[in-house]
């Protein structure tokens, strides 16, 4: 067997083992507990301490490719905001974020049948131009959003009657998987207008955003990946999709560690053999 064929076979074995390792915990949950991190608690505190009837922004800055990680966060945070009786303005800096917002609303609203569109929540749709959109929201929101996603004029949306600029927003929550996203919200909303910003991102993007969680509170906590989503579900006392999927992710991570160990043992043996 040539080394290339051998390497291909190894790859296929790795793929197959990983597939089995991810599938089994989804079918038969293990129920491992998730410990809540300081970053998730900080985000939770911001939403929890925001007064009733405040208008808050949820910016859906991602598309379906990262929804496995970000949609559970969006749903958990939306659930928390609704349970605190906050009025949620959803928007999107990514084109497909609009559908993500609609799906999150559709799922969470089942637990809050009394909430009414336009009174308790609204979807303003997609806005192009990233950071410039946020900067413009700081000056004149009705100009940025002449209508909502359904075509209702800004002035006719009851919950936005007293909302003219970002300063009238209690906090902005950006669920983001890239640019534009959290970084733009920090720069244009927090740093320029003092609007508190929190958010969630994919596990792979989180390390790049952690410097913003600092003593100036540029970012009020950060949810990074599925684990943080399950931590948030834990904080609000809900067992959502993140908690269910977390077992599979934990097993996959452990398996990757096992692969690293096997790879190193193999490399060590090859080196030993070549020296001999």
């Amino acid at each position, binding site marked *: 067997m040539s080394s290339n064929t051998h390497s291909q076979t190894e790859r296929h074995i790795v793929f197959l083992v990983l597939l089995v390792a991810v599938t089994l915990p989804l079918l038969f949950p293990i129920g491992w507990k998730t410990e809540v991190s300081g970053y998730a608690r900080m985000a939770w505190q911001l939403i929890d301490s925001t007064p009733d009837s405040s208008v808050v922004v949820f910016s859906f800055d991602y598309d379906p490719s990262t929804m496995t990680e970000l949609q559970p966060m969006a749903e958990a945070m939306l659930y928390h905001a609704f349970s605190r009786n906050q009025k949620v303005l959803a928007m999107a800096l990514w084109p497909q974020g609009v559908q993500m917002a609609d799906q999150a609303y559709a799922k969470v609203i089942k637990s809050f049948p009394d909430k009414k569109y336009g009174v308790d929540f609204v979807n303003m749709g997609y806005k*192009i131009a990233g950071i410039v959109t946020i900067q413009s929201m700081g000056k004149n929101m009705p100009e940025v959003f002449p209508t909502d*996603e359904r*075509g209702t004029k800004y002035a006719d949306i009851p919950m936005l009657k007293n909302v003219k600029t970002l300063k009238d927003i209690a906090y902005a929550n950006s669920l983001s998987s890239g640019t534009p996203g959290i970084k733009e919200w920090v720069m244009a909303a927090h740093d320029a207008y003092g609007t508190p910003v929190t958010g969630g991102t994919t596990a792979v993007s989180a390390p790049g955003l952690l410097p913003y969680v600092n003593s100036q509170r540029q970012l009020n906590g950060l949810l990074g990946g599925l684990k943080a989503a399950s931590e948030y579900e834990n904080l609000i006392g809900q067992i959502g999709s993140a908690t269910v999927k977390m077992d599979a992710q934990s097993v996959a991570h452990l398996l*990757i560690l096992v692969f690293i160990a096997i790879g190193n043992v193999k490399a060590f043996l090859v080196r030993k053999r070549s020296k001999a």
Partner: protein
Amino acid sequence: MKRNLPLIFAFLTGFLVVISEFIPHRPFSLMISTLQNWFLIISGFAILLGQISLFQANLAKIKQKESGWYFYLAGLISFMIMLLTGLLWGTQEYKGILGHGTHLQSLVGSKPFDYLFDFAYMPLSATMFSLLAFFIASAAYRAFIIRSFESNLLMITAVIVILGRTSFGSMLTSWLPENLRFWHLPNLSDFIMEFPNSAAQRAIMISAALGIIGSSLRIILGIERSYLGGDK
């Protein structure tokens, strides 16, 4: 003049934006609001430009029968299907040229565009991203080998962070007494992310920001002209 006019516009606009940051009062605040509105409008046209460019680039590759041309064809067909279903029957509350397509809605449960988005685009898109897990596992097995002190350090850090990010990792060291909580895997992982990682990330951010300031100044002052096209 053909090249000088855009340079003058770039200089004036760049200068205005910088000045308005330091003097956020009239007339600069009004000027900057107008510029931002222009930017929002122009960005809208960029989507149209992108779609035309995508169509032309793919069509050219199909005509020339480049290797894997059938993938470009599949891309174009998918593009056209989404475009047509959206135009003909609209999306969500918006009606299309042929109305809301109530007959089709009764057949598939939602509008054709929404149906395709929910049951074709979304799963395919999520699948593409989740395939990464398989490549990461394979790459970890083949490439994460201890060869030097640095790679050893990287390996130890990676193991701590990976374990700290799993529910299993927190169970592993949950028995540690209170005075040894720092060594609890999630805490150790958070420490790595909060201090060494943040320090390195800040260094990268500051360097990148300095680079952006430098290149922006070059554009404003007309030293950097590659955005005008051509190489002169």
